């Protein structure tokens, strides 16, 4: 968890030489720099995407900036017009309900009741795909989608990024399709 390390380093004043970064910020940076070439032409069906802002990465981690990076990458990958944002969003987004150890703690009924707000919020977007950049969120969103009868596909960002990768100019798509 991003925050576990970030806050751990901070709170316990753990000495370190490295800089602690999120893969999401890097995706955005690499796309902006042209190090990663992506295009959304694969999405000819116009799959609609929405997103979950992980609390640990966004609100408790790097704030709105990383959440905006996340959206930037999704829009690049899926097409600007295929992104539907949620509300509340960014630093103010709801926790999915899987955080804080809830997935391990075992209070399944509570966890699902908690996740109802998240489910309603995501369902309201009508999106086909929900990007969950955090494993906890991923598991919880999968579960509530299933439990409450959602129709979307819950995935990490990298699967779609891989799909949209262009290698050696426009010649060949990188993914395994």
């Amino acid at each position, binding site marked *: 968890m991003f925050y576990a390390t970030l806050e751990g380093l901070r709170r316990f004043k753990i000495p370190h030489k490295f800089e602690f970064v999120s893969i999401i910020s890097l995706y955005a940076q690499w796309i902006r720099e042209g190090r990663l070439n992506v295009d959304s032409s694969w999405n000819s069906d116009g799959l609609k995407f929405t997103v979950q802002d992980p609390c640990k990465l966004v609100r408790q981690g790097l704030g709105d900036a990383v959440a905006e990076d996340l959206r930037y990458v999704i829009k690049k990958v899926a097409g600007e017009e295929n992104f539907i944002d949620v*509300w*509340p969003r*960014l*630093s*103010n987004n709801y926790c999915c309900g899987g955080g804080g150890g809830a997935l391990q703690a075992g209070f399944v009924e509570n966890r699902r009741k908690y996740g109802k707000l998240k489910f309603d919020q995501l369902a309201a977007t009508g999106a086909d795909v929900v990007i969950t950049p955090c494993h906890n969120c991923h598991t919880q969103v999968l579960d509530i989608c299933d439990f409450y009868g959602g129709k979307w596909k819950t995935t990490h960002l990298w699967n779609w990024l891989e799909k949209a990768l262009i290698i050696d100019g426009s010649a060949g798509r990188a993914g395994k399709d």
Partner: protein
Amino acid sequence: MSTPKGSVLIVGGGIAGVQAALDLADSGFYVHLVEKSSAIGGSMSQLDKTFPTNDCSACILSPKLVECGRHLNINLLTLSEVLSIEGEPGSFRVKVRENPRYVDVDKCIACGSCAEKCPKKVPNEFDLGLGKRKAIYLRYPQAVPLKYAIDPEHCIYLKKPGRCGFCEKVCPADAINFKDTAREHDLHVGSVILALGFRPFDPSRLDFTGYGQFKNVVTSMEFERLLSPSGPCLGHMERPSDHQEPRKIAWLQCIGSRDINKACHGYCSSVCCMYAIKQAVIAKEHSESGDVDATIFFMDMRTHGKGFEAYYNRARDEGIDFKRARVHTILPAANDNLKVRFAGEDGKIAEDEFDLVVLSVGLETDPQVMRLAHELGIELDSDSFAATSCFRPVETSRKGIFVCGALAEPKDIPQSVMEASAAALEAERILHPARWTETRKKEFPPERDVHAEPPRIGVFVCSCGINIASVVDVQAVTDYAWTLPGVVFAQNNLFTCSQDTINQMAEIIKRERLNRVVVASCTPRTHEPLFQETLREAGINKFLFEMANIRDQDSWVHQDEPDAATLKAKDLVRMAVAKVRGDEPLPYNSVPVTKSALVIGAGVAGLTAALSLADQGFPVTLVERKDRLGGHARKFFRTWQGQEVQSYLQELAGMVEANANIDVHLGTTVEDVSGSVGQFRTMLSDGTEVKHGAAIVAVGAESFKPRQGRWNYLYGKNPNVHTLLELDQRFIKDDPGLKGLNQAVFIHCVGSRVPERPYCSRVCCTHAIDQAIHLKEMNPDMDIFMLYRDIRTYGKREHLYQKARSLGIVFIRYDLDNLPRVSETSGRLVVEVKDPIIDAEVTLHPDLLILASAVRPRDDVGELSKLFKCAMTSDGFLLEAHMKLRPVDFATDGVYLAGLCHYPKPVEETIAQAKAAASRAGLVLSRDAVPAESITAVVNAQKCTGCSVCTKVCAYHAVNMDANSQKAVVDTGLCKGCGACVAGCRSDAITLKNLGNEQIMAAVEAAMEDF
């Protein structure tokens, strides 16, 4: 100090700056009023209605603005900013930059042709960007000065010379000046008043409000514009997304206030609860469907001002839904609606959907103002408001520079107006030796006696460029005027109000020996004083004048009917001629002034008022019913800021006793009052007769002692139950019995906000909390519980509430239908109360039970109000002339009020109000004579039957029955010329000068004549 300068700089042209300017200019000082925008009026001019009277804001403000704009001794510097202030009290050098307007104010006639032609549309900042204006614009329809200005940021010509320039081409008055440049003014003044106001908090940094995200989330200031008839939807309340009338509106309180997290504003903005209720009430009224659901989400309802609690109660009765809940996030719903999810006190979640959400945004200091304050060396407090102290409420950290209005703390309009007068007083106190040294006075030639002359009427018909002439055939009207009886001269002018025409008019009056004048042009509301002055310059009494409004009420409203408009113009001219024919010269009435004051009551208010006047050299008679000075304040421990009251009071009383100008009468009351402004005669109980020009009533109030009944709580029965003031006594004595206590309980609202005393006592929340803090600091281990209904620590006092909580003082809320219960078991107090959050009965065992009991009006205030012909509220407090704009004046001229007899208030507000009252009294005392109304009622004793209807309808007590003759007599000193008595008279025995029935009917009949 050598003789000080007799002029004052006022920075900020909102209601506070305008009030201070008028007070100073009318009492002998020259004023430079600097305003950043193109017109004065400030935030108040943007409001639709004002609480708690629901007065139309523009209606009550405009006359003050016009007065300010026309005042011979007020130099209005708009589009201007202060660059620097050097010097000291009595002599400051000020640099002011006046930015170019690009419109010549002497030429602009505000016809609006320029704006009509201007191709550049920009968001209108006056409407908070909800509507559009042009690059050449009038800030608002009633702007003062009523002159257009070019916005250089957006003007096409100024950006790219050679392009556009349409305004210059269409301007009929040749007023456009693209070459206008900024000017610097070096002013030399004796004192400075800062009235820079506030700006509304910008909620876009609180993302959870949805502001900027959802179209139908607006700020309260934006909502004012949506309600306003002069706003972007012309008063047809529309929501932004689809311009439909909203049916369900929510207000969210404390947006940007009482928030130390994202908003960084720990203070309460004081006004938002009331304005939200007002907006809800007005929205219901405005609605065309007549069907608006209004819900206000709040933390504590703060209706702590005069008439506020009643307003709140009425709003609840009218069905406005008050929900005690703070909402986390505004959510979107279908159809651009908004969903609100909130938790009740029981923790139950509810949801509701609204068409429109209004964010009740707080007040904050503009960063530009912060920079200016910094440059001027004015200290700001931690909330970025000008730092002041309770005993010096309008003094800044820099000597000779004063502050008023929201710059010092968020506050409402009456409080700002009070402080404005108080700040004016402080300036006068320094500068009084220089009174009338820099003011200008208009001199007029003696007036020709026209009584014996037959009417020789001159008619001036204005084209107003093309404003009138493009619709009305002005030549035909002029020709027609020549044919009317009594008319010996008629002329058409391009701009009758231009300086050259004015000069010419004076010449014509003399040359043609005119004795009556009619100007057919625009509205008398703005131009009558100008033309009347021209008559006086030509030696003619100014009341021999009439206007025919052929522009605002003719050419502008019948643009497509030139023939009908011309006919109507002829009618209007004929009506004016008929009316002016009967006009008589009227006296410029005045009453000589006895330059001394009577102050009744020697509490903090009375002492402060007496000193404020005596320091300016005015003799004061100070009357106190008790045998010592100090009043209610003798029982206070300290102010909410922690200053000790007793030492201050001793100092104040000492200064009064030592002041040779103050004659103190202790153990004395007022027995009888006669006379009117300038010339009062008052009999005191000690046999003294006092002659005085003005009076200040400051007789205080009492604290309610709940000896029996519902609010008793064992008061007077258990020795450990006290009122706030009784605990203060123990604090003053440093009572050792207060050490080592285990538990204290305070009960708020004891006898306030209850059916028999429905008002809020304003001071008790802060007072009780300060006492709790003092106790807690004495005994850190003790538990203190505050049982409250709403905490009303308005303004910066909110910090005290926060401090109390941070110290671990526990606040438990109760309702009127769930009162705390107090009992005794073997002498030990037991208090039971229900905590609504955890839904549990809590039993407490205090060593001390403190009752925050009401402040109640004194029973004898009624007598005094009758003597001075002043009104009272239903709560028993004295009633000022106008709740909003005349907070220290009585309807009776020359009588003012201050302190607790007006309404419960803390010492800092009492001091400000007392100084304000002194400033207002100074308006009378600084003159040899005060003007009186010329158009007054006259009684024809022959016709009078003595029925006394006229005395009953007169709101000013100006008509009385003569005891001997049993006929009505009018006191012209009191008469305001409204004519209510004339209309009420059954026997046609009373008339109004120049507005008699015959004269009005002459105009009416003239309207009906055929020609």
